[in-house]
């Protein structure tokens, strides 16, 4: 009986399970697998590769910050300020003093970044004179701090500052090298590839209607912060430590603006008390409308006149 069962079983035909897999589907899935095997490393390698090329471009640029970090920044006179600091027109200073000059000013440059730039400068080079336009510490904008991220590979201090004010930006730079160059400063660096910076000055004149009818609030004030004053003190100390002469100045304002700032004298006194450096006050240097591009900024004509005045007053005199 048992044997017959076994015999029967051996005769049973097991139905085969046939799964019909189309060759096209197999080919498609294989190709899909290849795509992802290529895609994922490519995204990371491409990011690093293109990022390295952008770093090379940035450091080859003639923009002031690339010069600072690529070893070509040494100068007799170093200047620091916000957008108003660009009114210290570098080619003119070179012409009237015969000295090499590096202007590290930038639009809405925060005092924190100014401090890092000056400390980095004196770690790398020597200078005879540091001129700081103290209006630098009147306003701080975090986005401007993070826009200096193209230089974090060159400066530990800049990297630490960006990490402090915006951990997300710092993390973004770690994840993507390309994100490090997602900044207006990188675009400016590209612009000054193979081109000198001599055009960094405003060339227009303030609109007449802004002189007749201003849209300003009745009273404006300078927010005097301890942090800003600390930045100025650290900047002055870094220069003094390296035997550079320090000049604190404040560039001219048009009277329409200036007359509404009720505490500018308090600000200048606070700077003197905190840093021990007297501020040379040029706030009321001129009210000639042809010298201004707006209430706050001298144009090229105003800048040339202002530079001559600084020369006459001995601001550019070196140690």
């Amino acid at each position: 009986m048992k044997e017959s069962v076994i015999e029967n079983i051996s005769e049973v035909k097991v139905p085969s399970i046939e799964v019909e897999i189309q060759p096209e589907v197999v080919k498609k899935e294989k190709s899909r697998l290849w795509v992802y095997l290529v895609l994922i490393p490519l995204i990371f390698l491409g990011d690093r590769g293109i990022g390295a090329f952008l770093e090379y471009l940035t450091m080859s640029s003639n923009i002031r910050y690339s010069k600072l970090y690529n070893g070509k920044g040494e100068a007799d006179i170093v200047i620091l300020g916000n957008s108003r600091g660009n009114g210290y027109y570098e080619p003119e200073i070179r012409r009237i003093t015969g000295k090499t000059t590096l202007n590290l000013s930038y639009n809405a440059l925060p005092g924190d970044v100014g401090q890092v730039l000056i400390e980095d400068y004196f770690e790398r080079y020597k200078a005879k004179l540091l001129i700081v336009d103290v209006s630098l510490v009147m306003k701080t904008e975090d986005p401007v701090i993070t826009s200096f991220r193209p230089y974090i590979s060159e400066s530990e201090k800049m990297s630490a500052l960006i990490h402090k004010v915006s951990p997300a930006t710092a993390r973004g730079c770690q994840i993507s090298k390309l994100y490090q160059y997602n900044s207006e400063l990188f675009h400016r660096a590209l612009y000054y590839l193979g081109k000198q910076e001599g055009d960094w000055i405003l060339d227009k004149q303030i609109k007449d209607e802004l002189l007749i009818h201003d849209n300003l609030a009745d009273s404006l004030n300078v927010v005097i912060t301890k942090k800003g004053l600390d930045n100025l003190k650290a900047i002055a100390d870094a220069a003094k430590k390296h035997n550079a002469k320090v000049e604190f100045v404040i560039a001219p304002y048009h009277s329409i603006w200036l007359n509404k700032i009720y505490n500018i004298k308090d600000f200048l006194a606070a700077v003197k008390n905190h840093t021990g450096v007297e501020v040379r006050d040029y706030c009321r240097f001129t009210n000639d409308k042809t010298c201004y591009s707006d209430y706050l900024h001298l144009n090229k004509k105003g800048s040339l006149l202002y530079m001559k005045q600084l020369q006459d007053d001995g601001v550019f005199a070196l140690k």
Partner: protein
Amino acid sequence: MIFNSIHFLEFILIFIPLYYFFKGKLRLWFTLAASYFFYGYWDYNFLALVLASTVFEYNLALYIEKTEDEKKRKRLLITSIVFNLVILGFFKYFNFFIDSTNSVLGLFGTGTIHNTLHIILPIGISFYTFQAISYTTDVYKRKIKAETDFAAFSVYSIFFAKLTAGPILRAHDFLPQLKTDQKFTWDNFETGLARVLLGFAKKIIIADSLGSFVGTAFAFPDKYSSLYLIIGIIFYSFQIYCDFSGYSDIAIGIARILGYRFPENFNFPYLAKNFSEFWSRWHMSLSSWLREYLYIPLGGNRNGKFNAYRNLMITMLLGGLWHGANWTFVVWGGLNGVYLVVQRLILPYTERMGKIVPRQLFIPSAMIIVFLLTCFSRIFFRSNDFDSAFEMIKGVFAFNDMSFGHLPNKFVIIKNLGLVSILMILEYVHQSNDFEALVLKSPAFKIITFSAILWMIALFGTFSDSQFIYIQF
């Protein structure tokens, strides 16, 4: 919750696997719960309103279908339309109505109405109510059957992928898709993902980058030269296009990943050669809604030219008002209505001109004219009030200081011009090549597209929490 937020990324990463895990009815209820969560994340106070409205529309449509008496059916349809318009009117237009009334009363020197209500506009309400109106109208016209499955109807009403800014879905397109269990396919996933990435690229790389420039131009028209303002207005047209079409791409892409097909909302509008073509390419789901549920019921092209022009003007004026509770939107709609009417009036002359002028010259010229006039109308769309709009127009037509060298923010302008140029080249190429088909067919294209979009986002993206413009409508 907005698409370009980390919360949405977390939400969608949890939602997609669970969506495919659930099957049948359970999937519908899960999608519904997720959609309510999505909406409630923004403001849970309005969940009750959405639920009440859904229940009301669901039952009303069933009742319309059951009713044989035509008069009664019509009354029920009117009830539905009035119900939706009252919701829309109260939340969106109440303050506008009070302010406008006060302005008129002020002219006569009489007292004004004191408005003590501080009404918050529920997000996506304009899209939601229009979709509801189209549904009951279609049931009334017996174009579709009233939906009996409450879960399916609710998902159709409040599906998170299209809730905040469309596209406005038609019941006959979307409800049948909800009735079948969509299976996960890599083709859907990849084409959907490519579309989502494209949408993010448009929003983060172009729209947000243009936005900061546009913001300064419109905020201080008296401070900048005419050239700066002209660039600002042109950039605004690209900003709003990339912002809204980017949103639509993300919505369409998410739906595709989930196995659904949403209708297209844009079809290269800035390549339009006339205004009718522009409106058949721009915000297509709204344009077709207005045509089907407003323009045609008003009489459409029937009953002579004058009535057709009148209907066109009414449609465009109301279309303008739909965008926002401000007379500037009405003027924007009106201007576009005038463009359409004038285009019809001068059609014989333009046709004759088209035969005389070489095609290579005529078509680009027509595109540029349509684009520039569209840009002009958008001054009213973007300005907060008429004073700002006229200040802008005054600044532009003063034609003072047209030198590029004198422009501030040149780097930003050059970057944005570069981005806009890349966009237009891609649009032009894309017009004759099916993006989705290329993603599916060519592995090399897929690799290049995915990598390039991610690199571009890293290198040019603006990473802020900026809202999509059309969410406010």
